[in-house]
């Protein structure tokens, strides 16, 4: 989980990621960030998720848990 959180922090270019927040709470979250996240899931975790799904999580923590549960 730590590793994933760090990758997300790097992606959003923030120092400390508050995983109780949603992605959309961050100013840095835009369409490019969204596409980069999807590409990251594919390249680093071999997981496919679309933009709609990413936006559906109540918190970044919930998102991370889902990613890790699907990780092969």
């Amino acid at each position, binding site marked *: 989980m730590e590793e994933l959180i760090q990758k997300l922090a790097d992606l959003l270019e923030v120092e400390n990621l508050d995983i109780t927040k949603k992605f959309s709470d961050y100013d840095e979250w835009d369409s*490019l960030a969204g*596409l*980069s996240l999807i590409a990251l899931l594919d390249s680093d975790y071999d997981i496919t998720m*679309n933009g709609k799904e990413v936006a559906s999580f109540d918190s970044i923590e919930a998102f991370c848990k889902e990613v890790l549960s699907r990780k092969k």
Partner: protein
Amino acid sequence: MGYNPYSLEGKTILITGASSGIGQATSIECSKMGARLIITGRNEERLAKTLSNLEGSGHSMIVADLDDEDAVTSLINEVPILDGLSCNAGIGVGSKPVAFYKKKDLDKIFQTNTYSATLLIRGLLKKKKFNTPSSIVLTSSIEGNSVTSIGNGLYGMTKAALSAYSRTVALELAPKGIRCNVVTPGMVNTPLIAPTGDLTEEQLKVDEQRYPLGRYGNPQDIAWAIVYLLSDASCWMTGSTVKIDGGISLV
């Protein structure tokens, strides 16, 4: 046909990507304008469907995957002398930001969108299959040429390359009476833009509303411009780009 400078009567034309989308519509419109067609594509069933929808007679189809060297060689040997060539074979790929490009992504999309057309033209030239005069039309895109979209760089690169290539073809082959032009469509309703995981139907609808002319293109909208470029009406036009995009590149 009476007075009609846009007529394709008496012309033999090879059309790639004819099993669907713009290639399919172009085949049908060219047949209505009197051309004799050789249509090619990968999908035998859909290619046969295109063939059955052509007007007039004397048409034929050749199933071929343009990424397959042997198939291309075979195709080139089989076709008669051509008065026109319309290259429509192309694929889209999912959105991917530049930080995530892989070589295999580049290889795959360049192969189908760019290499296949250039190698086909090379082969046809070597076998002297182009008539004097004749006309080549490549289907490019506004992406990579007039507009830039986040996540669409791979596709845009292949289309920008096609457009640059077409100008070289125009210059080098002008002495042979071979013209070369491109069409750059905006978003056209074909399987290439079908809702994928990353762009939903709703997102496409929202995007469509941005078009000054109020809608995405239909394959025929592009086909009619290709007909013009294949016809004698464009006999003084080479190395040009015909942009057909419902005005979207203006906003």
